[in-house]
């Protein structure tokens, strides 16, 4: 996906989201931070570009926490993926993306909900120290991710999650990473002390 298309999608998402919230098209929670949803996903980086000519992605894991916000949904979380060098002595590295996101959620059917969110965060790259000088072992850079998915509710609290993510890492030569995910989530009532801090 070209940078221009990515920028346009992100921009459109921002403006449409803002417009929907402003005009009351989305659910406005009466009580922000009332509930929490914990999710764990298996994730796989499936696209291929110049970055993947140097490194091969392994299976990854994403975990996150989402809650009702003043408008839309607020989420925080992290995604871990390992990349193996295709040619030595280039180092292997592990990427850890720590993000905060804001998005929208909509009921599609009785047990099916769709969600779309925009995430920003730090894309940490931890290199294998067998090949790397100590000062170059950890790199980090801003990354923006467009995340979407559906949740199929198996019970009132538990749902099966299918997701797709597109992440852009703002290194000098941009990293463009697309992910497919499959996992499970569980909704919980937020404890009173936590609501007191967050509100």
């Amino acid at each position, binding site marked *: 996906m070209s940078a221009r298309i990515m*920028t346009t999608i992100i921009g459109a998402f921002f403006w449409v989201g803002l417009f929907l919230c402003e005009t009351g098209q989305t659910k406005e929670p009466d009580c922000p931070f009332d509930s929490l949803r914990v999710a764990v996903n298996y994730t796989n980086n499936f696209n291929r570009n110049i*970055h993947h000519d140097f490194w091969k992605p392994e299976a990854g894991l994403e975990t996150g926490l989402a809650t009702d916000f*003043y408008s839309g949904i607020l989420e925080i979380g992290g995604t871990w993926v390992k990349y193996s060098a295709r040619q030595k002595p280039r180092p292997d590295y592990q990427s850890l993306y720590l993000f905060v996101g804001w998005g929208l959620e909509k009921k599609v059917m009785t047990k099916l909900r769709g969600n779309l969110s925009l995430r*920003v965060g730090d894309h940490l*790259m931890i*290199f294998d120290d067998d090949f790397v000088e100590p000062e170059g072992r950890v790199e980090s850079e801003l990354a923006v991710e467009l995340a979407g998915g559906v949740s199929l509710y198996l019970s009132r609290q538990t749902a099966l999650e299918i997701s797709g993510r597109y992440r852009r890492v*703002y290194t000098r030569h941009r990293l463009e990473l697309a992910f497919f995910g499959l996992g499970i989530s569980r909704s919980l009532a937020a404890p009173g002390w936590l609501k007191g801090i967050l*509100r």
Partner: protein
Amino acid sequence: MMRRLPSIIFLFFIMAVGLKARDYQIGPAGGRIISSQEIREAGITRLGDLIQIIEEWDSASLDGYNWIVSPSGLDHFQHQRWQAAVDGRVFDINLMGINSLARLPVNLNQVDYIEIISEPYLGEGLWAEGGLLNIVTRKADSCSRLSMSLSAGNETGDPGPYRYTELASPNVDRIGWTGGADYTFGLKNIGGRLVVREEVNYPTDQNLYFRNGRIAGNYYPRQDLIALGGSLDLGRGGDATRIMVGHSRLDDFFFLPEYGREVPTRLNLYYLDIHHVRKFREGLSLGLFLAYNDNGTLKASNTLDLDFKWRTRRWRGGLEIQGSGEKLKGKAGLVFTKDNWGDRGDGNGGELIIADLYTDWKYRFSEAFSQGFSFGLSMGDSDNGLKFIGRTSWQNRAGYFMRLVGSYVTPLWAEENRLWYWSRNGFDFLNMDDSPFLHNDKRRRNTIDLTAAGPLANNLEFEIAGFYRNFRGEFYQDRVYYFIADDSSFGADISFQTIDKGSFGGIRLRLDWRLNSKLGLGLSGKRQEVLGGDSFYKATWRNIPETELKGRLCWRTNDNFVLNLSATYLGDRYWREYLRVEEATGDRFHAGLNEFWNIDLTAQIYFWSKKIRTVLAFKNILNSDIQYHPIGAEFDLSYFALLEFSTTL
């Protein structure tokens, strides 16, 4: 970028459905107010960055940390006659023509509002011909408050994993961090404040990184600031005393125009101000003040072995009597200023004592119409200077407001030309010929500012302003910079030019639009240009863009969550002094700087009943080619995060 302009403007208007007008706010000195809410929502995380949200002022920077300013054409980038004040008390932070706002011992979260005066101002012992930025701090009433904050930023463009491939690029993209704490208390007759702040700023541009690293002896160059301050307020029966002390130390890469490059040095500032107001009866009071300001540099290790140890000390003392009746308000004062400057090492230097006699009157002819004037006489160094400001104001009940301000100044030669003294007192390396302006007796400046504001509709507020500046007998530096290939730095040939006459003018328009409690829109534009003067005068002012546009869209879901989107367009600029550098380096450095659009996005969330404030700010989200100075940094997409904790004890 221009192709995106219609869609950006369209989106601004689409999202601005239902805005409510903001009250037009005028500060105690007659300047425009920028509230702490606006400052916070703009995503400002460093004190020095306040300069960037002042729409009326143009600014430029090499490193994104120290800014030079042109306040509505009162000055160009060579002089910096504008003043910075905290709670109305002036800090002399000007050093060799650079006012670094970061050096003030104030934390951003202490700021209640800033007042911007873009016309000459005279009052309370303060003469601010080049404009005034007054930072007014929050007071604690019958309580005490503790605040702590930490912010950090980073610029994008790291090599990332590609550093281990043939696509590797230099890694100089960290910005640095700011940490601060302050404690404010207020009891019945006593109040006070303590503040501490540290800031670290790294160059995020390869040219700056290599140039500054090399002159400093090949360490990772950075600017490191520590600021400490305190104040004590004592009040009893209408009398009030305020004592302010402050110190800041900035390890800086100080841009020395006479060298054409940055020089590592330590900037030291010490400040003490005692201000007492004795109230005789309602409407009659006497103010007394005494201030000491020590501002200078200390040598830092540099490969040029430049012994850069400069120091200026300023003592100011004076009295001011104020009276006010039903229709007439007036004040008169006498201030003595003693300036002492020189080299710390060899003792070369000079001294100057100036006496300022001034008066300021305002008569209210009717509820709507008032007339005021300020008159000042400066005496020193066998010379006299005259200052006159006239103000006519009209404001009706419907909220329409109009003000005409005119000023006429014949400045004291000595009070503003420190560089001249500097060269005369032992700094022979400057190699400057000061004879052309030694005998110039035609120095005078006059300004006219006309401002009108009011509601355009129930939900739309406007301000339109025109300004005109006329300069006679000014001296400008004719700087010709050249490139030194050995260490990728610069040198300078400098001579002086006397400007017989030159004029500058412009027009500003601002709209504030608010339909409901959630959305606010601000749009502003400025067009300014040289109206008269010779080719050298015109070329000097081409450093300043002729056109500037700003827009701000603010979405508040409630008091706890705010999104702010701001856009700035800066027209092209031309720095004639870097023409030789451009010729020598080809594509690397350019005398002409291109226009650019800059769009910033800031999210602010409060937690824990507003005890915790978090900010995530993205600057230059379009990753435009932003550059303010020909040899300055190019600023890419960058981001800042701030965590602030405040509590009432």
